Each structure stands twice: as C-alpha cells, then as structure tokens.
C-alpha cells in the first residue's frame, strides 16, 4: 500500500468549522503533507492551520448526508468540522488517521526478515530499532506489520509470525508496545491465532507460542484451526482422486468427497476470514493475525478478509494488487508450496495447496456475490495455473529476497503485464460486474459451499452446454448495452427534431 495513496481527498469545499468562542467559519478544507488547513478564502478572516502531529484523537459522526469530524488536539483544543457528503468525510478521516502509520525501510537488505519485502508499514511511534528487537521475538523475523487499513473506521489488520515465547513464557516489551500502538485509546483488539489452542500450546515446546493475555491485556485472543502442509496436500490428493473416478456410485462419491475434507478446509478458512472482517467492520476492533510462520493460513485470512471488506480488491487491478501484496510480497513460499500438485508421488512436507484453497474461497464468495467482482472464474483458474507452472517470473521464488537474487525483474516477464493487456483482460472480465461499496458477507453453511467444478471437474466432463449458456448470458448483457445506447441516440435525435419543429411552428 503506497502511503501517498491514502490521502484520498486533498480538498473539500463548503466545510463548516466550529470552535469554542468563535463564530462558525465556512470554507475549503485542504490537506497537505503536514497540515490540515481551513480557509474561508475571504480577506480578513482567519485560516486554520493544524499540524497533523497535533492531532490526538478523531471522532466522526454522521447526521444524514452531513458528516461531522471532531478533532481533539494534543494542546487540549477541540474543534469540529461539518463536512457535506459522507464519502469525503471518510476519506479525510482516513487520510488524517494514517498519520499513525509510517513506511519502514528497516528490512531494506532483507536482514531483519528474509521473507518480508524491503518496505513495510508499521505504527509511526515504533522506530526501526524496536522493530529489530520485535523481529527477534517473532517467528522468521516476521514482526507485526500493517496488512489492511479499513478506511471506513480506521481499524487495521496486522499480520506476523508467532511470538517466540517458548516454554518459559518469554516476553518482549517492544512487541507489546508495537501491537498496542495500533490501538486507539480505550480500544481493544483481537488476536486471531489460526491454530487451535492445543496446537498453539504445543508450539511452545519448539520455541514458538502465543500472546499471553497478561502481557497483552488490551487484546483478546481467538483460536481457529486452519490446517496446514501435508494435511492440505493429502486433502487435495484425495479430492482429485475422487473427482477422477467416474465409476463411483453415489454413496462412494459422497463419502470420498466428504473424506477428502476439502470443503471443510474451505469452510474453516472462510469462517476465520469472515470473523476477522466482522471484528474490523462490525466491532470496530483492530486485529492481529498469525499462525506459526505467518506465511500460509495467515495470508489466506488477511487476503480473504480484504475481499470481504474492500471493494477495490474485488476489481481486477485490486485483486492483482492484493496477490502482489498479501501473497508475493508477504512471502508466501510459492516455490515450495506449488512444487508439485495432486499426482506426484514424491511428497515433500512443504508442498501444500494453500494458494489454491485461497482461490477456491474467493470463488465461493464470487458465486454468492457474482455482481460484486470485476473478474470471473477464468481469472482465478488462470492464477491457479500460473502459481503451479508459468512462463512468467511472478510466482517464482519463495519471497522478495529470493526474487531479487534471481533478478527476476530483469530476466523474466511479469504475469500482470500479460494479463493486463486488453485482449487478455476481456477473457477475465465479468459482464455482471457493477461496483458497490459494500462489505459482502458470504454464507459459510455447508449447503452454500460447492465443489469448484471449474477446477476439479474441468477435465472430467464436457462443459459444452455450460459454456454455451455463459456465452448466451454475455450476449444478452451486451445486447442490452447496445440497445440502451441506441435508444439514447434516438431519443436525442427525436428531441432535436421536436425543437426544430417547434421553431418552425412558432413564426
């Protein structure tokens, strides 16, 4: 996430400023790199110049379309801004609030955390020295970093590796400070551990562990259990095997499908992502997510939560950015996980369809909200294919550090540069898409989850009739657009003729 990107609305007109003992001032609100400025743009009236760093707390309220921001300053001053249009208000607020965050180059040489990118976003109040200390306390050096900022209410998703508490309950003051720095005064947050409590407890014996409530009193820990590694790989193998045998009778097919546990994993991952999104959007609480390494189930959850919360991540570019950010930059070891798929006999323990499960979860949400995604199923299938085998460099290597060493940017082509060509994009664009700004809550009931036929039955049956039906659907939509355009042209034409007639008649 580019920092500058977060300043969305640099200027808003018709803002009313209320200050104690002063008459209200109407004017234009501007945001600069350092200041919030309100000017009436008239002579002899005061302008308000407020340093971002002076802002201690911000409240916002909506009364109808009118938004109100109350800014509480460190010098105890309290001012109120009435801003027309809620949207602007949100943008302004988020622009201001991100002054709580900064970019850190502490990992420039990949020395602090080999699986992190060179630049990460961290709380402003935490300096690089502290980050280095926290890195020694987190698995793989993966100190907590910002994964997602929810503009609507300023809550965040952070992710990290597990804390290395070990059996004797080690703690790290800087870690506690870092995590708490993400909370507003009086707010509580949630730590979502993607492992069950038992697994997390067992991890202590190997030097890992989880956050003790005593040391993180403002945080509530929730354990979920998302499976990892070979369990997922076995699940995939069983599922593919079941799908490939056409001779199964009904009972056998259903029991094989069940025994593969694939949809159970889907449900578990989706449920955890929904829970994370719920904490952010409904409870107004920030969250930290981690499992063991923070490179697998953690990323499934952080990325899916963004699909649910953030409309942009449901567009093609947004989804590409999400994959870049939450999977490639975040250090999901694609090389290891996708080395082999369901048919290979030599099973290595690090092979695991983590990314495929993520794509499957996205597909499940897409099925439930077909109009909320700019891309279609083919886009997801294409990504699956390229994650496992690709002529592009994008999914090579296990993290940024490796990709730098391999000089992939110089030596290979990026998948995105190919995908984003208009001729390719057309294949991946959903004709049903209509952007909405809503948070989308999928159903995770077993009756709502489906086997992803486009992946698992793809080579086992003809999809001729389904493809033709899809074509027909596209035709109807395109025809609709054509007709509407034509009607508009004709209406205009008629209106012109009518005015001409009118003119002829009047003399």
């Amino acid at each position: 996430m580019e920092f500058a990107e977060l300043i969305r609305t640099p200027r808003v007109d018709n803002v009313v400023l209320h200050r104690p003992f002063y008459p209200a001032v109407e004017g234009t609100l501007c945001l600069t790199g350092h200041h919030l400025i309100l000017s009436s743009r008239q002579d002899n009236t005061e302008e308000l110049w407020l340093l971002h760093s002076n802002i201690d707390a911000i409240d916002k309220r909506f009364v109808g379309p009118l938004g109100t921001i109350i800014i509480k300053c460190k010098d105890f001053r309290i001012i109120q801004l009435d801003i027309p249009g809620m949207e602007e208000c949100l943008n302004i607020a988020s622009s201001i609030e991100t002054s709580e965050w900064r970019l850190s180059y502490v990992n420039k040489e990949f020395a602090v955390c080999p699986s992190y990118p060179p630049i990460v976003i961290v709380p402003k109040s935490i300096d690089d020295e502290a980050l280095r200390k926290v890195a020694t306390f987190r698995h793989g050096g993966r100190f907590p970093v910002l994964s997602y900022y929810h503009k609507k209410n300023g809550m965040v998703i952070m992710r990290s590796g597990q804390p290395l508490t070990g059996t004797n309950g080690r703690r790290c003051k800087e870690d506690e400070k870092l995590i708490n720095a993400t909370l507003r005064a009086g707010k509580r947050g949630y730590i979502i551990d993607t492992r069950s409590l038992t697994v997390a407890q067992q991890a202590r014996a190997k030097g890992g562990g989880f956050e003790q409530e005593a040391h993180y009193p403002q945080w509530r820990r929730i354990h979920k259990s998302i499976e990892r590694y070979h369990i997922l790989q076995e699940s995939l193998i069983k599922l593919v095997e079941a799908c490939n045998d056409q001779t199964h009778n009904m009972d056998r097919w259903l029991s094989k499908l069940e025994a593969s546990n694939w949809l159970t994993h889907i449900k578990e991952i989706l449920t955890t992502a929904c829970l994370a999104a719920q904490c952010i959007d409904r409870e107004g609480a920030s969250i930290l997510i981690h499992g063991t390494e923070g490179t697998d189930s953690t990323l499934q959850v952080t990325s899916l939560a963004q699909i649910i919360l953030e409309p942009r991540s449901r567009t093609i570019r947004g989804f590409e950015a999400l994959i870049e950010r939450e999977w490639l930059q975040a250090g999901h070891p694609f090389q290891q996980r996708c080395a082999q798929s369901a048919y290979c006999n030599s099973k290595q323990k690090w092979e695991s369809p983590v990314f495929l499960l993520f794509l499957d979860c996205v597909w499940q949400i897409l099925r439930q909200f077909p109009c909320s995604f700019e891309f279609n199923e083919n886009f997801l299938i294409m990504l699956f294919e390229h994650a496992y085998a690709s002529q592009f460099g994008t999914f090579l290597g296990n993290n940024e550090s490796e990709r730098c060493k391999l000089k992939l940017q110089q030596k290979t082509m990026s998948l995105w540069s190919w995908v984003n060509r208009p001729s390719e994009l057309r294949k991946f664009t959903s004709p049903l898409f209509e952007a909405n700004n809503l948070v989308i809550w999928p159903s995770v009931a077993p009756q709502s989850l489906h086997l992803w036929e486009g992946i698992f039955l793809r080579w086992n049956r003809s999809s001729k009739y389904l493809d033709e039906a899809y074509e027909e659907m596209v035709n109807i939509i395109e025809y609709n657009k054509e007709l509407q355009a034509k009607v508009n042209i004709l209406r205009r034409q008629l209106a012109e003729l009518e005015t001409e007639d009118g003119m002829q008649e009047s003399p």
Partner: protein
Amino acid sequence: MEHIRTTKVEQVKLLDRFSTSNKALTGTLYLTATHLLFIDSHQKETWILHHHIASVEKLALTTSGCPLVIQCKNFRIVHFIVPRERDCHDIYNSLLQLSKQAKYEDLYAFSYNPKQNDSERLRGWQLIDLAEEYKRMGVPNSNWQLSDANREYKICETYPRELYVPRIASKPIIVGSSKFRSKGRFPVLSYYHREKEAAVCRCSQPLSGFSARCLEDEHLLQAISKANPVNRYMYVMDTRPKHRMQSWWATQKDIGRIIVRISSKIWNDEKIRESHEQKRLNAMANRAAGKGYENEDNYSNIRFQFVGIENIHVMRSSLQKLLEVNGTKGLSVNDFYSGLESSGWLRHIKAVMDAAIFLTKAIMIENASVLVHCSDGWDRTSQVCSLGSLLLDSFYRTIRGFMVLIEKDWISFGHKFSERCGHLDSDPKEVSPVFTQFLECVWHLTEQFPQAFEFNEAFLLQIHEHIYSCQFGNFLGNCQKEREELKLKEKTYSLWPFLLDDQKKYLNPLYSPKSQAVAVLEPNTVSFNFKFWRNMYHQFDRTLHPRQSVFNIIMNMNEQNKQLENDIKDLESKIKQHKNKQTDGVLTKELLHSVRPESPTLKTSLCFKEQTLLPVNDALRTIEGSNPADNRY
C-alpha cells in the same frame, strides 16, 4: 371457523432457523381461515397456508415464552415464540385441526375465489387438452387407436377414460389383460415417438405368481411390439430394485427349485449381467408371492430389464433423513455430506434418471418400444415415463409442454396426489415425495442443459408449492374418476392458466429454441453431477442463498431488452414521421408526446401472494440480507 379460538397474538417472536445469535423478529401472529400470517415490526409478511403445514410442535416452555415449531411441506420451517402459553396452546390446537382436513370439500380450493366467472374457469380447465397432445404425438394412426374400453371406468378405475392401445388389440384382449394386472392397469400408450414409430407404454405388475399365465396379456404385449414396424423386440422395464425382496428371499428354503436361466443376449458386460441376474432373482421371488414380472419364456420378443428405483416408503424416510440433517444448526461439512450420503436421496434421484435414460436409449438407439411398470404403475412408472418423454421430446421442455406432461403421466394416469401429498388426514404411510423427485430430476437436467428448457427453477418450485397448497383443483384426488366425482371442474380452478398468466416469472432467459435441434437430451449421470438442491430444500432459508442472483438479473435484462426493442421501433417511426412532417410542414401534436418513457409495470398476480419463491433480491443488485449476524463465523 369453529377451529379458531385465537385470531391474533401480539409480541410473538420469529426465530431465525440457522442463526446462533437467537436473533428474532417480533411481530403479530394472525390466524385466518386459510393462512397463518406473521407481520413483523418492519411490516414484512410471512404467509403460511394451513395446507402446507406438515407438522406443528409445541416445545417446552422457556423464560421468553412458549415455542411453536411449524414444519411445512414446502420445506419451510418456522420457529415462533408465543409469550403466553395459553395463546400458544390455542394456536397449536387450531393449526392441528386446520392443517388436517377430513374431507375434500374443506380444502382451500373449494373456497378459493380468484374472481373469475364460470366460462373463464371452464376455459382454464380446457387449457390442457390431452387428446390434442396425443394428436401432436401422432396418434391415432395406423398402428395405434383410441380405445373406449375404459370410457365408463369399468376396466380400470384409476386410469383415465381415454386410452390409446395398439389397433390390433381387441377389447377381449384388453379386458383379459386388465384382469391379470394389478388394479386392472393394463398396458397402454404413454408416449409415441413419431419419428422412430416406437412407443412408451405403461402398466402395473402382472399377477403371475409362479406359473400363472395370461394369454390375453401376452397377446397385448405382442400387439405393442407389432405396432412398432421397425423393431419387433420390445423392452419390459420393471422399475423395482432387487433388494426389496431379499428378506423374503432369505426365508425361502427351496431356492434351488427356482431355476435361473442366465441370459446374456442383451448384455455383454459381465458386471451388468450379474446385477441383472440378481435383480431377476428378486423379481422372481416377488412373483412367487403372487405378484411379479413377465416371464420371458411366455412372452415372445420381449427383453426384460430391471432398474432399481426404491418404493415409496424408502423414499419417504430418505427425504426425512435428508431434512433432519439439513435442519441441524451449525452443521459441519462432514456431517452434511455423510448425511447426504446416508439419506440416499441423491442415489434415488440418480436411479430415476438412469431409468429414464435407459428408456430413451431403447427408443433412440434400438428403435424399440418400451413397456414400463412397477407394482401399481402410478409412482415409479410415472417418474420414468414422464422423465423419459422429457428427454425424448423438446415440447415437454416448454412451459406449456411441461404442464401437458404432468397432466398426462401424473394426473390422468392416476398418480395418487392426494395420498402422496397428504392432502387429507389419511394414512401417513401413503405419503411419499415421488413427484418432488420428478421435479428434482428435471432440475438436474436444467443444470446440465441450461438452455434446453423454456422454464426456470421458479416454475418448478411454484408447481411444487401447489401440489401441496390445495388451492387449485388439479392435484386434488387420486385419479380422474375421483376428480370427476368431486366436480372439481365446477367447484375449483385450474392452476395452469394462472401460471401461464405469470409466465414472465418462469421464463428461462437463456432458453434457446435452437437447442431443440438437440432434440434428445443425453444427461451425464456420473455421481458428481448430482448436487443437493438447495433452492428447493432451503427455499425459505434466506441466509443460505447467494446474495446476488445472476439468473434474476439476466431475466430482467431479457425483459428490458424486449422493451427496448419496442422503444427503438417506436422512436424510429416517430423520427420518420417527423422527418416526413418536416418536409410536409404538417404537424400532429399528439405524436410528440407519446414516446413511452418507461416500461409498463408488470401485472402482478394476486393469487400467489403468500409465496416467496427463491427469496433472492428482487431489486437487481442490492445485497439484501448480507449480514454477518445471519451467518455463523
């Protein structure tokens, strides 16, 4: 209404079936003569027809009130909490009475009044004309004729008056055969394939016992096979499965007395032959009990084939198991699939589908006529004949054609709707979801062939709704004779014209008449093609459905396209007139203002007020009901 003691209860809570947060809507419950109505604080109405109620249960009193759980035949389950136990008890008792009527005349259809006059009503009943349908198929013709043998229901009470039989089958042969067949249901024509000149016939099982023969019956079968000029061989499909008789079989000490003649003339595949033989053994066991199947030795030119569809009792308990599993709160994926498996439901659906495919292949590939029967020939036989016809003939895949199909193979041939649907307070062992299974098979076909059907899922759901609603006369009674005695055509209305009036709702926007070129559907019945029909069994569980329906969008867009096409025509003609006028210098004022601005509002039909079919959003792209509290995370 003497059964209604309390007509209105306030402060009633309606619980969400799948929500764990015990989220509830508070509102007022009304009891009318025909419906139970709940209006919540947002003025949203939930209508439940008394006839739809399958069971009412009063649970133990809780602190918040008295829970009342109502299960409906359309798979709606509502959970009310009534504040005072007395009110709850009154409603409970009333509903028990109202949902189980003792006589037909008390059913809704006899009081339902859609404000039509007698001639409109009569026209409604004449909408579907089976004589026309047989004509469309190509009968009567040189081989098939209309028989008047059953004109007065003298031979078979459960058959219609008009039956088509081979021209060479004389009346004595028909009468003789009917005496040999269970309930007198002798072999008659169900579908005639004009192009192949092959026939689908139906009947009940022969009462053959171990050795009994019936020459007339043998003659009739021979007449059927002779009516096919291309292939003299005909298939006799017994739709029953083998293991139904296995318990009986096990008790027989003298199995050795029964000589099994292994026949391999049909099947080369070893496996199929084996199971075929086993099925044969079991039917043979049935035959020993006095009922049975045709002995190939006595009938010339027949090929005997078993397909394994279970009986009504198995189907009933299968559905019960399925519903139990799916009703569980917080159901896990594994429990769902193991429940789906152990219920056997999809296995049964597949069996029906496979049977229909067998029939289709016999006709299309071997050009052979087929005679289908089960025991009485009104359940499994109806399923197989109707589904087979649907695969063979694209007419039945249109809205009107589907109505004709139901009239033909289900209503007229005496599928016992009233008993199977439990319209009256009668033997619960006669209730069975046989017709529901047929609809589900059709739904599976629409999934595999999205462009082959003129109608959509909502059409199937609406029909399902009305086989239980008792609002229209079509499905009342168990056979045509009974319907005539009830004077349904004078006293009730037919469903079909109402569905046709509302046709727009039921059109499949992707339907492509060009797919009629693919006249015969060849579905793939690999197990993974069968899916749980969520929109049927969870139709009313809003939270389980996709929040945006592609289908609705396309449907509306299709409608809009038609409107736009008209608008374009309008506009073009107006522009043309204007141009002419400009040259003529003549101006007609009214034309200027008559451009239609918006599409006209669609006529909404009053008679379907109480149903919310597919409760997906009506508004195009809203995400109604998308709420984390609705889901369990």
